[in-house]
């Protein structure tokens, strides 16, 4: 547990000292969302209708673009090799890294999402559901994304590759995340969708650290 806390603290400190990273993710999210009114036109009804989908897709892309920094820098300067050799279980250390990634990208996105929802004219009934769905969905994105980030260590053109690997696996989160908000906007209970999202999160939490640790060990061979 000490190792887990130490790595969490280290990654958070690195993210805070370098600073720009979290801000960049949120900026990317806001800019991408802003593009849609230009693309589909500023008509209020249309924007309100597509708001939940637009916010989810932008959040997905923002989470994906920040995946590189989970392992890449540590891989290049050799830190990852030392982590692999350490007596603390690698799965636990990876869980710490993923949690740090979520705290620096997922959490700011959840805070920024209602702002974008207001700008896209989404009905107020959906706000709470949107935030709860993102609270369940974004950790799953970080967990699943870590597998992809570990698989591409040492690959050529890794950045493009990670999108091809990770986005298909993100689709279930997108479907149920947008579906939950949609249900809330229609006045139906969104419990079913939220429960499925919780199930996805638990499954990812149980399986992803092992798959990621396996991929990291392969990259070190």
């Amino acid at each position: 547990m000490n190792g887990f806390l130490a790595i969490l603290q280290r990654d958070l400190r690195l993210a805070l000292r370098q600073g720009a990273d979290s801000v960049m993710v949120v900026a990317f999210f806001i800019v991408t969302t802003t593009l849609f009114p230009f693309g589909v036109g500023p008509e209020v009804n249309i924007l309100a209708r597509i708001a939940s989908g637009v916010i989810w897709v932008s959040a997905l892309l923002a989470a994906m673009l920040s995946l590189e920094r989970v392992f890449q820098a540590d891989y290049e300067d050799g830190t990852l090799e030392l982590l692999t050799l350490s007596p603390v279980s690698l799965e636990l250390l990876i869980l710490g890294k993923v949690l740090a990634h979520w705290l620096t990208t997922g959490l700011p996105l959840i805070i920024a999402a209602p702002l974008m929802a207001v700008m896209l004219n989404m009905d107020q009934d959906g706000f709470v559901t949107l935030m709860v769905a993102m609270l369940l969905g974004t950790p799953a994105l970080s967990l699943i994304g870590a597998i992809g980030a570990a698989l591409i260590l040492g690959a050529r053109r890794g950045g493009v590759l990670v999108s091809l690997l990770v986005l298909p696996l993100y689709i279930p989160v997108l479907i149920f995340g947008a579906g939950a908000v949609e249900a809330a906007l229609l006045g139906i209970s969104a419990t079913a969708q939220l429960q499925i999202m919780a199930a996805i999160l638990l499954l990812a939490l149980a399986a992803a650290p092992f798959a990621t640790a396996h991929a990291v060990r392969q990259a070190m061979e």
Partner: protein
Amino acid sequence: MHRFAKPSVFLKFTAPILPWLSALTVILIAAGLYFSLIGSPVDYQQGHTVRIMYIHVPAAWMGLFCYVGMAICGAMSLIWKHPLADICARATAPVGATFTALCLITGSLWGEPMWGTWWVWDARLTSMLILLFLYLGYMALVNAFDDPERGSKAGSALALVGAVNVPIVKFSVDWWNTLHQPASIVRMDGPAVDPSMQLPLALMILGFTCYYFVVLILRVRLELNERRIRALHLSGMFEDPETPASAKEQAYEAGHNAEAKQ
């Protein structure tokens, strides 16, 4: 099973099978095409367009079958480190991707006259499209490393993670109420397809499956031979004109044995 994981045993074992399997594939697909295009009745509602089914359904079956095969090969290569399992998984991916694409294209051609649209975002269609993306991601990942060994290992892990999608494709029509019809062949109370249509469908499915195994054997043999040639080039035997023919043969055998020992 582990006995066949040796490349040399695989080559020896498949050499006599290959011509028979190829002949069987040709016969099955020829008979299947005859019955599906000429020897089967026209559907009372769909007319001749029903014949698209005899390509569409086997292609969909092969798309899933190849993915399961690829995931099993991936698991075998991760657990027992068989080099042959890696080669099989690599050889399967393009075949599976082609069948999945074929399934999507024929489905689209069938959907236009029947549903009045080329594409709908229905659960079955979407999950099949994701399957195609998974194949493409696998192929891109496997070829993205300078060290082919590392590429295969990363690919195996991805194939296993992506296997989550296979049951989603299979049961999507039961879980979501969609435009695509529910399962009509593999179900608890027997197939719901008319017997006159079952025969061509069964022939085509068997034919496509045999075709896959023929292509798999050919691709694995090709890969093994390529590796052997590379090993010989590295040892410099080919470049030296002074080397007597018997020494070349010896080197060939040596390469063969070295591979078998892996």
